[in-house]
C-alpha cells in the first residue's frame, strides 16, 4: 500500500493504539470532528475510534508536555503533539528539565516513555512557524531524536518511538507530509513509500545509505536528504559519484555508518536546513575529525542556512534553504580544489 508520511504516521498511531491501550494522543486540534486532525492531518479521524484516548487540549504547550510527562511516569504511553515545532519552545521547561532529566534525577527508579511529535521546515511562514529546531534539542541529553524522511521510516520510527522506554522526539517535515485538502503544502516533495503488510519498526539509532557512491559523502535529514539526492542526480550526469546518508536518528547518531562512508570517500558535506551556528553539522563534523581526520582528502564542509531567523519573502527563503543546485555547486568546487 503506497502511503504519504501523514498517512503512514496515522496508520502507525492507529495500530499502536489498538495494540496497547496505554497509548494515547494529546495535543491541540487533534481530534475535533470537522477539524484538521492536527495541523497536518496526521490524527485525522482517529477520534472516531478512540474517543477517550485522543485528547484535545487548551492552547497550553507547557501543560501538554507536563501532562504527557506525568502520565508516562504513571504507566501510560502518551504521544504529545504540537502544531508547529516552534511551539515546543513554550514547553521547554517540561521537555528539558522534566521529561529529559527525571529518570536520571530519580536514580533510575522511574521511566518517562513520552513520544513528542513536531513539524519543522522553512516553509513560507517566516520566523516563528518555520524553524528547524533540531539543534536546540540535540544538546540535551535524555531525549532520543528521530527525523523520518520517507513514509516507510515514519511508520517504523513512530512505532519504535512508542515502544521505546525513553523519551523520543520525532521531527516531521511540513513539505514531506503529503497532507491533503486544506492542509496541503505548496512546494511539497513526494516522500510516500510502499508500506508492507504487517507490523515493523525502524530501529532508533540507525541511519541508512540512501545512495551508494565513491567520490563524496553527503549527509542530510528530512527535506535536506531529498535535496541531497537531487544534487547527487545533477552531479551523476557530470561523472561525480555521491554517497547520500540519511541519519534518520539525530541522537544518538549512527556514527559507525557515517565514519565508514567517509573513510571510503574521504570527503564529506553535511547539509542543514537550520542555521550553521551550533548545528547538527558542527556535531557530526567534530566527531568525524576526532575519529578519522587522517582519512579526509578535503575539509569537512557544512552547507547550512544563514545565521539568521527564517525570512518570509520567497526570494530570501529560497536563498536561506540549501537548494539542490547550491549543494551540487559546493561539491563541484570542493572536488575541483582538492
Amino acid at each position, binding site marked *: 500500500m503506497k502511503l504519504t508520511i501523514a498517512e503512514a504516521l496515522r496508520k502507525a498511531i492507529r495500530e499502536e493504539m489498538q495494540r496497547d491501550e496505554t497509548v494515547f494522543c494529546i495535543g491541540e486540534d487533534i481530534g475535533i470532528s470537522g477539524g484538521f486532525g492536527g495541523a497536518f492531518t496526521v490524527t485525522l479521524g482517529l477520534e472516531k475510534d478512540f474517543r477517550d484516548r485522543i485528547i484535545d487540549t487548551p492552547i497550553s504547550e507547557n*501543560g501538554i508536555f*507536563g*501532562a504527557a510527562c506525568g*502520565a508516562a511516569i504513571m504507566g501510560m504511553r*502518551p504521544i504529545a503533539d504540537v502544531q508547529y515545532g516552534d511551539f515546543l519552545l513554550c514547553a521547554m521547561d517540561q521537555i528539558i528539565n522534566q521529561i529529559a532529566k527525571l*529518570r536520571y*534525577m*530519580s536514580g533510575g527508579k*522511574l521511566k518517562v516513555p513520552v513520544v513528542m511529535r513536531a513539524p519543522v521546515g522553512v516553509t513560507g511562514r517566516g520566523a516563528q512557524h518555520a524553524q528547524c529546531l533540531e539543534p536546540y534539542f540535540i544538546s540535551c541529553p535524555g531525549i532520543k531524536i528521530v527525523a523520518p524522511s520517507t513514509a516507510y521510516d515514519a511508520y517504523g520510527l513512530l512505532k519504535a518511538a512508542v515502544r521505546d522506554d525513553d523519551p523520543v522526539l520525532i521531527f516531521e517535515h511540513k513539505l514531506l507530509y503529503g497532507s491533503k485538502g486544506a492542509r496541503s503544502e505548496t512546494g511539497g516533495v513526494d516522500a510516500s513509500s510502499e508500506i508492507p503488510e504487517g507490523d515493523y519498526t525502524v530501529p532508533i539509532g540507525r541511519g541508512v545509505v540512501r545512495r551508494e557512491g565513491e567520490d563524496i559523502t553527503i549527509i542530510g535529514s528530512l527535506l535536506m536528504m531529498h535535496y541531497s539526492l537531487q544534487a547527487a542526480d545533477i552531479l551523476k550526469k557530470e561523472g561525480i559519484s555521491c554517497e547520500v546518508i540519511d541519519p534518520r536518528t539525530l541522537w544518538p547518531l549512527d556514527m559507525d555508518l557515517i565514519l565508514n562512508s567517509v573513510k571510503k570517500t574521504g570527503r564529506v558535506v553535511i547539509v542543514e536546513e537550520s542555521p550553521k551556528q551550533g548545528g547538527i553539522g558542527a556535531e557530526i563534523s567534530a566527531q568525524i575529525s576526532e575519529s578519522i581526520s587522517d582519512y579526509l582528502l578535503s575539509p569537512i564542509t557544512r552547507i547550512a542556512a544563514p545565521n539568521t531567523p527564517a525570512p518570509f519573502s520567497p526570494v530570501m527563503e529560497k536563498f536561506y534553504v540549501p537548494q539542490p543546485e547550491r549543494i551540487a555547486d559546493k561539491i563541484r568546487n570542493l572536488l575541483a580544489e582538492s
Partner: protein
Amino acid sequence: MTRQDLLKKLGNKKLTDMFERMFEIRTFEEKIQFLFLEGKMPGTIHQYIGMEACAVGVCSALKEGDIIGSTHRPHGHAIARGIPSREIMAELYGKTTGCCKGKGGSMHIGDIKKGMLPAIAIVGGNIPVVMGMALAFKLKGEDRVAVSFFGDGASNEGAFHEALNMASVYEVPAVFVCENNLYGASTSIKKVLKIENIADRASSYGMQGMIADGMDVLDVYDKASKVVGDARSGKGPTLLELKTFRYCGHSRRDPSNYIPKEEKQSWKKKDPILNFERVLLEEKIIDKSGIKELKDKIDKKIEEAIEFAQNGPEPKPEDTYSDFYVNMEVPR
C-alpha cells in the same frame, strides 16, 4: 467537622504518628542546618522549619498508591510521605544509599515507589506533571489521587495556570496544595500579588478553592481529607491554600533579614508543633513522658540517619553514566 469529632476520627495512634512526623521534620531540618553551616554537607538546602503541619496534614489524608509532587523545599514532604529519613539524609550527602542514589540531591528528593515524584526544583514545574499523573489515573480508572505541593511564588508561573485549567477541564483526581509562606525567596507576596487569597484563583478555572490554617495540622488534615476525598470520588480537583510561614531563610545561610522581626515573632507564637503538642496533652491523647519518649526516639533516629549518611558509600565517578537511558548506554 468539630475538633472533638476530628480527634475521635483520627484516633490516638494516628494523632501521635502525625506529631511524631512533624517532630521528625523539625529535628531533621535543625540538624542539617547545623551540619550544613559546619561545612560537613555538600550542595545547598532549602528548609521546611515552621511549615511541618502542611506536609503532615496533607500526607496523613492520603492512601498508599497516591502520589505527591514537591519543590526545591522537599525534605518535609518526603518525611511526611514516608521516605525513610536516612535515605533522604544519604541523598543530601550524595551517597549511593540515598533515595536517588546521589543523582538527585536536596532539591530532587523523592522515590516514586514510595509515592513521591522526585522533587522538581523549577518553581511551578511539578504542577503540570502532577496533573498528568492524575490524568493517567483517570484514563486507567485507578483509585488514586495526585497531589502537587508548591509555594505562593509558583502561583504566578504560567505552568500553574496551564495545569490548573487543564486539570479542571479534564476533571482529574488531583489536589493542588499552595503553601503560602508569604515570601518567594526574599520577595513578599504583597509586592507581587494584588489579591489576598491565592485560593481565590481557583474560581477562574471553575475549580473548588479552599483555605486552611497551615500552622494547625488538624485543620490542614480536615480540609485535605475533604478535598482528597472529592478528587477520589470523581468530583474533580481543588486548589487548597495553606496559610503558613517558614522560620528559616530561603536557602543556605540566608538570615531572612527581609522579614520584620515582629512578623517572625507573631508566627512563632502559632508554632505548629508546640500547639499540636498542647492539644495532645490537653486531650490526654499522650502524656508528658510519652512526648519525651517520642522525642528521644526521633533524636536517636536522626542521629542514626546522619551516621548512615556519613558512613555510606560514595558513588564511583563513572556512575555518572548509569541510571539514565532505559535500554541504551550513554553515547560517549
